[in-house]
């Protein structure tokens, strides 16, 4: 009876240990996904957002990107190479035009062609409402490249996949 009790307690400790290991030492794939979750959190905006939160989020957005990030989009006006400061500025400007904004990412496919490079194909969905009350709902497939710089995964390329070419 005592042996069974020790076995159960021991088994429970092992299971907790395994969960703790995966929680506190996430694998690279989880670290990459976390960057997308952070981007989603910092880009999203609620109507009650105050100025301090807004400024903090805009500043944080830039920290997710490499020194220079390449953006490729079907619309040529958006395509180009941007510094992280420019990205923060443009993100802030875009957020100010919308009273409510929600950015979500799902359907992740991550692979590592090299040790410190991650290529991610995923779906991004942007919903929100403009200042004039107009609803925004856009879904796109994205191909992103992240580089591991000083132990952090940073966005270095973002491509909006063009499915239908006119």
């Amino acid at each position, binding site marked *: 009876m005592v042996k069974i009790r020790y076995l159960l307690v021991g088994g429970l400790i092992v299971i907790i240990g395994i969960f703790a290991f995966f929680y506190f030492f996430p694998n690279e794939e989880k670290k990459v996904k976390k960057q997308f979750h952070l981007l989603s959190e910092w880009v999203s905006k609620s109507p009650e957002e105050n100025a301090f939160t807004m400024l903090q989020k805009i500043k944080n957005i830039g920290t997710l990107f490499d020194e220079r990030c390449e953006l490729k989009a079907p619309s040529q006006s958006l395509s180009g190479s941007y510094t992280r400061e420019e990205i923060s500025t443009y993100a802030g400007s875009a957020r100010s035009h919308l009273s409510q904004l929600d950015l979500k990412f*799902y*359907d992740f496919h991550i692979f590592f062609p090299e040790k410190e490079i991650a290529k991610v194909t*995923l*779906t*991004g969905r942007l919903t929100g409402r403009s200042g004039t009350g107009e609803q925004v709902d856009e*879904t*796109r*497939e994205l191909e992103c490249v992240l580089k591991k710089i000083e132990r952090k995964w940073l966005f270095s390329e973002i491509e909006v*996949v063009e*499915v*239908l*070419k*006119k």
Partner: protein
Amino acid sequence: MGIDSKIRQFFFPSLTPKFLIRVCLVALLAYLFFGYLCIPFTIQGMSMEPTYHNGGVNFCWRVRYLFSEPRRYDVITVRFAGSKVMLLKRVVALEDEQVEFRDGKLFIDGKEMEEPYVRLPCHWNLPPRRVEKDCVYVIGDNRSMPIENHHFGQASKNRIVGVPLW
């Protein structure tokens, strides 16, 4: 066994091992069939009116093109983003054909095409362009909006998921 007990047995079956195995098998088959072969979807948007209505429900039959190629006028589903977002469009041109719109009329290789499924007025103009290899040209049936607001163009055959069941 009387009729009453038969009815009771039908609606409240005994939880025997045979019954549970049958339930598991049916659940597994349903998961495989509706998850991979015949995928349910809802239609969002009006680009295929009046053929398919906004809010309509249908199933995507994935095996349609397992041993054949898409033909002109087929309505197909095209993977737009990830595995969950698809476009429902009609094939109007095949690879290496020239597509053109003149005052709302579709021309393929310089020849005007009959389109009885287009019921709403259309005045589009689109210069001629050739469909690339391994691509099909898809477009919605509802062309009453300005051409810039309609999502259409050539899509890679790799992105074709299937056809609507009805």
